[in-house]
Each structure stands twice: as structure tokens, then as C-alpha cells.
């Protein structure tokens, strides 16, 4: 991460730290760096900073480094960290807040694939009311330009009668559209 003047970042980004605390409802200042969250994290070997370091970086106001980290996109939300946190911090919830912050602030380089997946997933839910897997896969693959992705699973799923070619449309689609429009405009 290179050299960082901690006094300066803290001054510049205090509002960011405060917002993460407010949005997540988690008082990360309670953390005393026991690192149990990282010890149990099934994603830590694929992360650039383990969860305890992300919490420390947050306390120091290192907004850019945190929002640009690989960590927040590798986190699977399994909540093992939360379960084991001796200071009662819902670390997984903080990761959720950080992902939302990163999307809002446009730090999405490392998350291209996650975001196109989420957008494709939510697009089918917004349109039909339920997930339509084949439609999601096609949309995701065309967004990423990786047209053959997961094709090895498509045919076997069809053969087992586990994938439908057509979406199921619920009756409450207008209500769904309203929910999406009033939360994430345009339903992306």
C-alpha cells in the first residue's frame, strides 16, 4: 500500500469512518485487534488485507485503500468473523456496508465480475419477481464478454431438469418494480 501519512488521512476521511459506523450500526472502535475474524475467515488466503486489518485501516480513515481492496469482494458473507468476534462487532455487516460504499463511490475495478453478476441477478428479479438463471447467465456472460462461462454446467443442469428455459412471472411485478425503483433507481 506504500507510505501513508496517517494524521492526514484521518483528518480527510473522518466523515467516511463515521458514516461506515452509522450505516453498518457497528462500533468498529471497539476492536482491539485480536484477529480472530481473520483466523477463521475462509476467504483470507485470497484477500489482500485480512479482515482485522480492514477494520484497523477503517479506524485510521484509510478510505481509498479499503474501498479499493480485493478483500471486500472476496468476502462471502459467511459471518464466521461475526460469530467469533469477542467485541460484538458484526464484521460481515461492515463488509456489506463497504461494498455498498465502494459501488456508490465508483471503486469497482476489482469488482467487475461481482457487479455484473449482481446486476444480472437483480435484473431478473426486478423483471420477473424470481431469479431466472438461464437469463441471468446469458446477461452476465454478455456483460463480461465471456460467452462460454459455466457452459459446462448448463447442459447437465438442463438434462437433470434443473434449469428452465423460461422465466416464471409473479403477479406482484408492479410491486417489485416499485421496490427496486425506490431503493436502487433503475433497478441495476
Amino acid at each position, binding site marked *: 500500500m506504500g507510505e501513508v501519512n496517517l494524521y492526514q488521512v484521518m483528518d480527510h476521511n473522518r466523515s467516511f469512518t463515521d458514516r461506515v459506523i452509522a*450505516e453498518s450500526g457497528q462500533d468498529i472502535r471497539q476492536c482491539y485487534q485480536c484477529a480472530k475474524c481473520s483466523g477463521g475467515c*475462509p*476467504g483470507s*488466503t*485470497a484477500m489482500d488485507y485480512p479482515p482485522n486489518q480492514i477494520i484497523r485501516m477503517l479506524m485510521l480513515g484509510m478510505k481509498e485503500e479499503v474501498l479499493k481492496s480485493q478483500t471486500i*469482494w*472476496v468476502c*462471502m*458473507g*459467511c*459471518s*464466521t468473523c*461475526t*460469530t467469533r468476534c469477542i467485541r460484538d462487532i*458484526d464484521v*460481515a455487516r461492515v463488509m*456489506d*456496508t463497504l*461494498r*455498498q460504499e465502494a*459501488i456508490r463511490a465508483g471503486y469497482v475495478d476489482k469488482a467487475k*465480475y*461481482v457487479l455484473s*453478476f*449482481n446486476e444480472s*441477478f*437483480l435484473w431478473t*428479479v426486478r423483471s420477473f*419477481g*424470481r*431469479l431466472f*438463471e438461464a437469463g441471468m447467465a446469458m446477461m*452476465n456472460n454478455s456483460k463480461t464478454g465471456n460467452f462460454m*462461462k*459455466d457452459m*459446462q*454446467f448448463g447442459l*447437465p*443442469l438442463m438434462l*437433470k*431438469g*434443473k*434449469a*428452465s428455459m423460461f422465466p*416464471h412471472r*409473479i*403477479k*406482484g411485478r408492479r*410491486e*417489485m418494480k*416499485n*421496490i*427496486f425503483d*425506490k*431503493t*436502487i433507481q433503475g433497478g441495476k
Partner: protein
Amino acid sequence: MSKYAFYPGCSLESGGIEYGMSSQAVADALGIEFLEVPDWNCCGASSAHMTDHLLSLALPARIMALAETLPVTEIVAPCAACHARFAAVEYELGRDDDLKQKVNSLLERPYTGKVKLRYYIDVFSNPDTLSKIEKKVKKSLKGLKVACYYGCLFVKPPKVMQFVDDPENPQAMDNIVRALGAEPIPWPYKTECCGASLGVTEEDHCTKLCNDILRFARDSGADCIVAACPLCQANLDMRQVTVEKKYGVSYRMPIPFFTQLIGLALGLNPTSLGMKKLFVDPAGILKKVGVA
């Protein structure tokens, strides 16, 4: 007769179709009534809670509000990921009236919290139903060694999940397996994450996590891993091909749902339980049970 609002979720109509088939078949055999939530929608899963907090609560709240139109006091979701979203609604909206109002302003029918979330495995593992199962076992699964795999989302985080089971060493499924005559083996990966949510985006890491779980189950002497979450099940079942390619190990470990195992012990037809829908051939288990 016990009655529950039943939320199949998208998986039970696709990748986890055999979980739905076996759940219904076993419920019928045990006199449990599942009433499907009318006009249900997708709970939004990880994609919603990564994107927007309010969205991630409104989608499952709509479902729970619709469940309130049914003559029930409890709702169940066989999928652990859906269950976790309902638990989040109960936990967060139950403690924050402003948030509840905000969510309800997005819904046509308000969520009141009248219908409570019930831990799906407990529908079968509660003492009454368990003794009923014990009495109805036609083909004891004696000799079958089973690794019970709960995944993360039924039990973690315990505060939100209302401490339904031990988050590190849960017992509900172990008790069921024991009632069927099989042996639940002790193993350390009962609630380790399988990485299903990384399947599309960080496939390499997901494959590693699957391999860890499969390896621990095999080394602990399991004949099969029994799953309770359709995402874990699909991941561990389908991804064995990828694991084999990457690690050069062929486990051929069948991954049935716990409801399928109950059905086999009750003497139900394996086809009606969706045994043929599994990717890794469960012939070995069927042979041990004496139905093939």
C-alpha cells in the same frame, strides 16, 4: 398436525429441485403440512445485500407479509440463504420501528412480524417429530457414515439467527441422522463456508473451499455429506468435476439432502425423493440402505 408457511425460494425450483421433492414427500409421510407462500418473490440473496440495505430487507419482508395471509404462525425456508434474509428482517425490523415503517412504505401489504421464522431442520429434529420419525423408520440406515454439513447461513451469526443451534458444532441434523439408524461422524467442517457465492466470480478460491470440505469428510470416514442448503449442495455436488481437474483427486462423494435421507429410511421411493437428480451417483448409499 403441524402447519407451516413454506417458502421454496428460487433454488427449490431449479438447482435444488430434489430438496423440494423430498421435503414434500417426507412432510406428507409425517403429517406435516406445508402451505406455499402465495405469489412469492426472490429473497434477493447476496446480490441484494451487497447492493442496497433497504432492498435487501424489502424483498424478504414482502414474502413474510404474504405469509401472514395464511393460517399459520410460523414460516420455514429450506434454503439457508433465504432463511438468513428472513432472519435479518426479523432481527432488524423487530428492533427498529423507523426501519420497519420505511420498509413497509415500499410494500403493498405491510409486514407485521406476526408469522415467525422457524429453523427448517428443526421442523424434523424437534423431539415430537423425531420420535415419530424413529417409529416410522422402515429401512434403518445402519452402517452408513454421514458427515452432516450445515453450511454457514442457518446458524451464523448466532445473534441474528436467534441461537437456534450451536454455530460451530450444530446438532439438529446429527440427531436426525442418528434417528434414522445411521452414524453422524464427528468432523470439523460442519459450518465452514463452501464458497458457493464465489462460484461465478472467484472460481479458483471456491474450488479450494470445496476441496477442503470434501477432503475432511473423506478423511473422517464419511460415506456421504448430507446438506441442508441448496446452494451448498449444488456447489459440493457439481463442483467435484472441477475439484478433480484442479487437485487430481476424485472423491465421488454423494451429497444428498437430509430430507432425502429421511425419505429413504421411511421407505419412500428413491425416484420420488429425486435421488436421480444428484450429480454424483448415490448408488453406494442406496445399496447400503438396500434399495438398489
